[in-house]
Structures are given as structure tokens and as C-alpha cells.
């Protein structure tokens, strides 16, 4: 059996069409976009065309779009940049409980090291924020509210617009991390009513190391880096022209395929969830069946550790994930599932299967053959499962 890759929320293979679009800017048109000569002009034109293409997808003006190295950097600029910019007048932040660490950690840094106040918005059992919880916490002292559009672990999609509307009543800024949503559902900054939005290329068949941050016209932001005029001094550093071109092409392809991919992912995911539930007892679905990115399937197998399931699947050439991927490869108890009030015993047993363009029904059938005996074997060794069953 070939390898079955069900970890598309971690990253995806770069589409050959994207690679092809990037290649000229790594070789012939290699110029520095800031240079005065022909080489520089060629690079600059490519960069600005890319900016226009990306802006068109999220429906902002090109001048409101800033290229970055990816989701983590975009999130950090959004959170730290606004907090620092407005700290003399406002020093309160609000973020969702299920945010990615790229939002969570800068926010916690501001709280623990820089004297900011931080409030966390609770979520319901499906991982959705109740707008009232924002009304209860927001004040005139709030500078930025950040709630992700789609969650990386569960795929749960938030209703952003009502939250953004409340935020604006308090003259605060609203940021959303759209890294797991862009290219999978329609992302429109006007409809969402957001002031800042983070996105990246590599979750949707683009290259790693390039992303963008939308900053609404008029929003001020303190830069995190200094050293040049690139990206209007908000993100200095020689522009990654090939990356920007790759991001633009990636989004162009994703937008074109959006409807088809969405229905195909929904169909495959439902088939997979039904298959697992039908073959394995005591499995719980984590998240919202209704409000979610269909390709993300988080399942908890009672009585066993997600880590053991993922390792056993890897030995059978099936790539899935427990918790979210991090540099060391350590699986940590998920703050996302804990915030959703998933009992710890089930949170430990969570496995995330994230489907993608290469996923086929045959591959899922293979997983449906290999997974039940793995779960059965692990449960046979689990004193916890035995005690639950008694």
C-alpha cells in the first residue's frame, strides 16, 4: 500500500502548477524588487501583480495586503503590532479560547510580560463562541479582539461578523486567523467586517514560508521588525517574490476549485465518519457537524491515547495527527478540546484526520480496514477502557 496522507491541516504538497509559476522568479527573474534596474523592476511588477491577485480573492484593496512569511508571522504582527500601537490609550485584549498558538502565545506574552489585560472567550461544546460572551467582556479599554475563522484541530467555523460588529461598537480592532479557512470556504474581508486577517499558502497546496496579512486602510500598526521600507515598513526584509507569486497562484487555483473541492471533501468526510462510527464502538466526533471545514475530522477513541493510535497508523503508512503538529513532535493535551469541555479522557484519545485533494475513497477504505484492529488492540491493553466498560 502506498502512503495515505490524512494530515492536510498540517501542510499540503505544493501544486506543480504553483511550482511552475514560481520557478521564473527563482532563476531568470531573480531580481530584488527594491532595485532600480530592470531586474528589480521585473521583480517588483511580479510582486505587485501577486498582491493584486491575492487582494482580489479576499476582496480588499492591494494596498491593504502585506506579504509575510506565513500564518505565525501574520498573527504576531496583528496581535503585537496593534497592542503596541494603541497601548497608550488601550491595553486590553480579547482572544478566543481555541486560538492557534500563534495568537495565544503573543497574547499571553503581552499579559505576563507587558502588563496588558487579557480575556479569553469561552466556546460551547462544538467550539463556537457565543456573541454574548464578547459583549460581557469588551470595554472601551479593549484594543484588539482576535477570533479564528476556522479551527485547525476541529475545523469548527466561527460566525465572525457578529463578533466584529460588537468589537467595532467599542472602537476596537478585530483580527481573524483565516489560515485554515482560506481556499476552503469563501473569505471576504468586507462581509466578515474584519480589520486584520492572516492567511498562508502551504495549507492549500502552496509553498511553505509565505503568507499575508490584511490590514484595513487606516489601521495603525507598530512594526515588529526594522530594517527597510519593504511592505511599507510594516514588514521589512527583501521581498520573497517567488513566494508571493506562488501564494497568488495557489489562491487563484483554490478559488476556482472552491465549490467542487468543498462538496467532494464533505462527501468523503461523511463517508469516513460514518465508516469509523459503524465499525468502531465508543467513538466521539469533536467539533460541529454543521459549522465546519468538511475536510477536518477530529475523532476521540474512548480509553486509548491519541498518540498511540497515530503511531500505530504511521506503522501502517497512514499519516494522521493527534493534537496539532509542533516543532519537537511532542503531542500535548489539546487546549482546543479542553476549552470545548471534552472530558480529558476523550481529549487524550483524539485523532485528527484531515483530508485533501489527493484523498480517495479507496484510501479511506484502507484506513477503515486498518483502524478498527488498531483501536481494538490498544483497548485490549488499556486498563482505562476496561474500567469504563465495567
Amino acid at each position, binding site marked *: 500500500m502506498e502512503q495515505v496522507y490524512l494530515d492536510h491541516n498540517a501542510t499540503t504538497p505544493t501544486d506543480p502548477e504553483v511550482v511552475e509559476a514560481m520557478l521564473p522568479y527563482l532563476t531568470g527573474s531573480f531580481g530584488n524588487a527594491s532595485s532600480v534596474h530592470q531586474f528589480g523592476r521585473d521583480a517588483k511588477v511580479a510582486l505587485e501583480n501577486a498582491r493584486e491577485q491575492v487582494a482580489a480573492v479576499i476582496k480588499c484593496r492591494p494596498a491593504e495586503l502585506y506579504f509575510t512569511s506565513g500564518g505565525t508571522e501574520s498573527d504576531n504582527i496583528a496581535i503585537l503590532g496593534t497592542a503596541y500601537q494603541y497601548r497608550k490609550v488601550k491595553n486590553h485584549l480579547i482572544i478566543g479560547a481555541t486560538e492557534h498558538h500563534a495568537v495565544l502565545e503573543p497574547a499571553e506574552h503581552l499579559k505576563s510580560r507587558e502588563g496588558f489585560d487579557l480575556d479569553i472567550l469561552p466556546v460551547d461544546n462544538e467550539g463556537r463562541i457565543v456573541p454574548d460572551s464578547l459583549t460581557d467582556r469588551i470595554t472601551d479599554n479593549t484594543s484588539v479582539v482576535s477570533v479564528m475563522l476556522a479551527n485547525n484541530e476541529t475545523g469548527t467555523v466561527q460566525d465572525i461578523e457578529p463578533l466584529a460588529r460588537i468589537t467595532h461598537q467599542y472602537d476596537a480592532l478585530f483580527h481573524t486567523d483565516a489560515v485554515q479557512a482560506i481556499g476552503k470556504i469563501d473569505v471576504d474581508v468586507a462581509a466578515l467586517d474584519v480589520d486584520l486577517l492572516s492567511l498562508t499558502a502551504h495549507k492549500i497546496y502552496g509553498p511553505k514560508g509565505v503568507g499575508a496579512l490584511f490590514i484595513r486602510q487606516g489601521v495603525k500598526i507598530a512594526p515588529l521588525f526594522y530594517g527597510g521600507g519593504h511592505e511599507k515598513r510594516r514588514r521589512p526584509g527583501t521581498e520573497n517574490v517567488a513566494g508571493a507569486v506562488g501564494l497568488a497562484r495557489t489562491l487563484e487555483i483554490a478559488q476556482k476549485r472552491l465549490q467542487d473541492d468543498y462538496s467532494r471533501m464533505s462527501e468523503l468526510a461523511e463517508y469516513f465518519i460514518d465508516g469509523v462510527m459503524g465499525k468502531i464502538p465508543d467513538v466521539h466526533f469533536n467539533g460541529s457537524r454543521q459549522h465546519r471545514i468538511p475536510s477536518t475530522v477530529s475523532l476521540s477513541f474512548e480509553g486509548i491515547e491519541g*498518540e498511540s493510535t497515530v*503511531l*500505530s497508523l504511521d*506503522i501502517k503508512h497512514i499519516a494522521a495527527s493527534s493534537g496539532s503538529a509542533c*516543532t519537537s513532535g511532542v503531542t500535548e493535551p489539546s487546549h482546543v478540546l479542553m476549552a470545548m469541555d471534552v472530558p480529558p479522557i476523550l481529549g487524550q484519545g483524539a485523532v485528527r484526520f484531515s483530508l485533501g485533494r489527493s484523498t480517495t475513497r479507496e484510501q479511506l477504505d484502507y484506513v477503515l480496514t486498518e483502524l478498527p484492529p488498531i483501536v481494538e488492540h490498544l483497548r485490549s*491493553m488499556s486498563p482505562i477502557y476496561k474500567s469504563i466498560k465495567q
Partner: protein
Amino acid sequence: MARKVLVAMSGGVDSSVAAFLLKEQGYEIVGAHMKLWDYAEVGGDIYRDGRCCTIDSITDCRIVCDAIDAPFYVLNMSKQFRCDVIDNFVAEYKAGRTPNPCIRCNTDLKWNAFLRKAEEIGCDFIATGHYAKIEKRDNGRYCLRKGVDSTRDQAYVLWGITQEALAKTLMPLGGLNKSEVRQIATKHDLRTAEKAESREICFVADDDYRRFLRDWDDKHGLVAAPGEIVHTDGTVLGRHEGTAYFTIGQRRGLGIAYPTPLYVQKVDVANHRVIVGGDESLFQSELSAEGVNWVAIEAPGEPFEAEVKIRYRHKPAPALVTPLTDGSVRVTFKQKQRAITPGQSAVFFDDDILLGGGVIA
């Protein structure tokens, strides 16, 4: 089909070579690094070299596993390590004893949770880079023997392993010297060949256990209450900042001017007292050991003679080991031994064969 082994890899040269040698012997290898603790929790310098549980060490494991074409995983055991090893380490000092956390980790983590993980993912054995040998004896029992490298015999820290666990363990370095291990690593271009080794307590990154306890105090509440330093003759000589900061036989750090050298004789937690006296009164001929695990022999009914080692760097001394009815043993040395320390392990050897061991009461 090749037998499958889960190799415990720290990121050092020993476990790298252990994995390499087993691969050469035809085993199917799966590498695993046990992530036991976080610098954020235990303090110390995350960027220091040659330490386990750092990102760099984990990377080293990955590269070595890739070189021998083995899958590699990081297993998060920090929660178990925190309760079984770190909390116990603190509690032992608090109770006036001097723990050996490596032994605790071997018994409770490596030859328990790690072994279970191996079974979960379908491995037949676990393996480590310890310098010790495992052999099956005529009496049907698995025994541990000292490794040939006498400068780093590690059998002492392995006395707690059960028979069932030993039956599923491979230690390929028992017949080698450290220099040979390094040669193998160099010859086969393993990334960890030149790596410095750490032989101290892994989660006390700066080797300063008092600093660790002081930090723990700040974060989690008092480990030890301050009190008096008292001479064995009853004279109060001064004050100390906590009984936990003292270990038997300790000379430095008492902060007392006295005509003759003073050593800690006893840590009296109940009265918050540290008892000090001259070197000569540190010598004792008897100890009792609890929680005994028998390795090469069945639990004996009669007293027997053995060589008993009472700390990692102690030269085993001849003694009579008397099993008691409650499962503990009494050890009577032929010659008095210096600084018998509660919390450390007493391990009984017949030449190079590990018979059993227990914790000094």
C-alpha cells in the same frame, strides 16, 4: 519477520550506537525519545548542549534514526515523569532523604510506561544504551550483569526492573567500552559521535539541585523549613534555610566556622534540625533497605553474603544480607561504610551479577 525493537533514544552517542548495532543484528528498529520535562518548568538553560529533552537532542535522534532507516517518534511522558519522578524527588528531599531519580525513572517510566508503549505499537522488545548485560540464567531468571566498561557500570541504576520487563529488554552496549562505542559512531558517521555526555540528573540542567529546590519552593510552595544546625554533642552551631538542602556526608555549604571539619550526620525533619559532626561518626555498619526487587535470584529465605553498593560511585563492600519477613532486608557490612544515606539504593551483587536491590530506609 524481523523482531521489532523500540529503542529509547536520548540524543546521545550511547543510545544512537545501541540502535545502530541492533539494526546491524537484523532487528527492525523504531526510535523513540521520551519527552520528560520542560525547561519552563524545571529551569536551567535550554540552549546548553548535550542535554536530553531539548529540541536539538530530539533533532539528533531524528537524524540518527533516518541514517539507519528507522521511524522515530517523540513520546510525551512529561505528566508521568512529573508525578513519578520530579514530585517524588522533591518529596524525598522534603522528608530528609537523598533520592536517586534515575532509578525511579528506570523503574517507573522506562520499564513501565515506555515498555507498555512498545507493546501498544507492536514491538517485541525495548532497548537502551545502558552499559549492562542481560542474560537468562539456568534458574530461568533474567539477570543483569555489570557492563565490561567498569568506569560506567550502570547495572546499579537498573535494580528495580521486574523479570517480565527484563525478558523484553535488549542492552547491546554491555560488552563494549565507551571508547569503542564512540569509534563505532565515528566509523559509521553517526551525528552524535562526538557529543558530550551528561551524567547528572537530567531535569536539573545546571547540576545544582539546591537551585532546583529553591526554584520549586518559589513556584510550588515550601519544600523545607529553616531550623538549627546542631552538633552531635548537642551544641547549637547555627541556622540553616531548610533541611532539604542537606545530604548525609555533606561538608560544604554549612556556613559554620569550627576548628575541625564538620559533616552532615543526620537530617532531622521533625525538629527541622541538621545534625553535624566529625568524619569518624559518619561510618556505620548497618542499614535496612525497603521495596526490594530480586533480579538474579528468587526472594531468598536465608541470609546470604554479597557485595553491596550503596551509591552510584561507591565501591561494593562485602556484607551479610538478611531478608526480613516484611519484604525488606537488613544489610550488615563487614567493615563500616561512610555516609549510608536514606533514599539512596543498596544494590546486592555476586561479583558482576546483580542479585537485587532496595531503597535505604
